[in-house]
């Protein structure tokens, strides 16, 4: 979830950028997750499209997200190559769990059991 507080002394652009960075680092926004379009996020948060576009450009420059042409912007895998591969695999597993309508607790338990085996 992203929150923009107009009364905060931190400029909206910086509030947005910091929250994205924090969520990518913590894994809340997993590798491969698609971000909203610039226009959509600007409308949702009541910001100018240029503010969101600038934020996306800086996040891309810093390696947090990647733009895949007309398909939109996606969260990049973070860390060394092995960690990046693991994040891509985790994303695929999470998508499949969502498709099957299974619970997060069950999914985590199966991963833990598979890792212990």
């Amino acid at each position, binding site marked *: 979830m*992203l*929150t*923009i507080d107009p009364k905060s002394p931190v400029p909206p652009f910086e509030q947005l950028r910091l929250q994205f960075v924090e*969520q990518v680092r913590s894994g809340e926004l997993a590798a491969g997750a698609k971000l909203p379009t610039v226009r*959509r996020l600007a*409308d*949702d*948060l*009541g910001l100018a499209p240029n503010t969101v576009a600038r934020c996306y450009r800086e996040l891309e420059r810093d390696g947090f997200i990647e733009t895949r042409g007309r398909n939109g912007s996606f969260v990049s895998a973070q860390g060394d190559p092995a960690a990046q591969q693991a994040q891509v695999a985790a994303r695929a597993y999470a998508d499949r769990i969502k498709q099957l*309508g299974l619970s997060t607790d069950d999914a985590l338990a199966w991963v833990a059991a598979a890792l212990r085996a």
Partner: protein
Amino acid sequence: MDGGTWFISILLFVTSLALIALSFVPYYARYSVLRYAQRLELRLPSHLEGVMGRRLMARMRAGAIGAAVFVAASSASLAWLVEPDIRSNLVGLLVIGAAFVGIGVGTAVAALAASSSVAPDQPRVARAGAVAVKDYLAPVELVGARVVVAGAVLLLVWVTVFTSRYASVDYVGITMFSIFGVLSLVLFEVASRRIVDQSQPAGSTAELVWDDAIRASALRDLVTAPLALGVYSLLFGFVSVADANGDVVFGLLGGIVFVTLLAAAIVSRVTRTQSYFVRRLWPDLRWSDTADATTDAA
């Protein structure tokens, strides 16, 4: 049209008018939104009761207006165009199908025209990830609508190419159900994407959750038209071909469609498709997440 079909038409029209009238009653708005919250197992903060009740009623009113207009128009055209000896069950099904299409059209118009806003000095919250129609509708509804309409079109092609138009009246019935099924599916595909692409200005997580709830409800109303018309076309088509030709295979296929329909209804009930979006978009939602804007911003 015979007496039975007129009765169905008048009943649907009067019910639509009653729903339009009810949508203006504040007590009913409150009752509806609280009942919806109970069905979804979502908490509704008291400061959102009024606005969410009004949005729910606006959508219901638009759907009822659409149903009333389509029922009146279809009844008048069928009474004027259709021969008196036509199968009365076919005409009745066409009028019910028109009501579903009307609900879909009305709901789409209301959902696309709706707008919400947040005071400029208030904190704003937004989802960090993108969403799609598949996040709001369970596969049994989303894929089901596409499958039954595709099945209806295939049946129409098969009947056109391989049978000797066994009975012109039944052929007209299958054709109409299939054409309106395809049109309502196109309406659903276009309108649902536009609804999901609309912005969601929200001052708190609770507002965002409830905006999703209203969206999910509108999309479910929209998908009902192609689902119902596709199922009608398949059921009516298989049974009438079996009747006309004494074809056991088609009778069996009609039975399979009926059993599949029952199974889908049970799956839908058991898996609670109406709260699918909560599990998909808000899997870790806690009541503390749906506090008001100031708490969210803190």
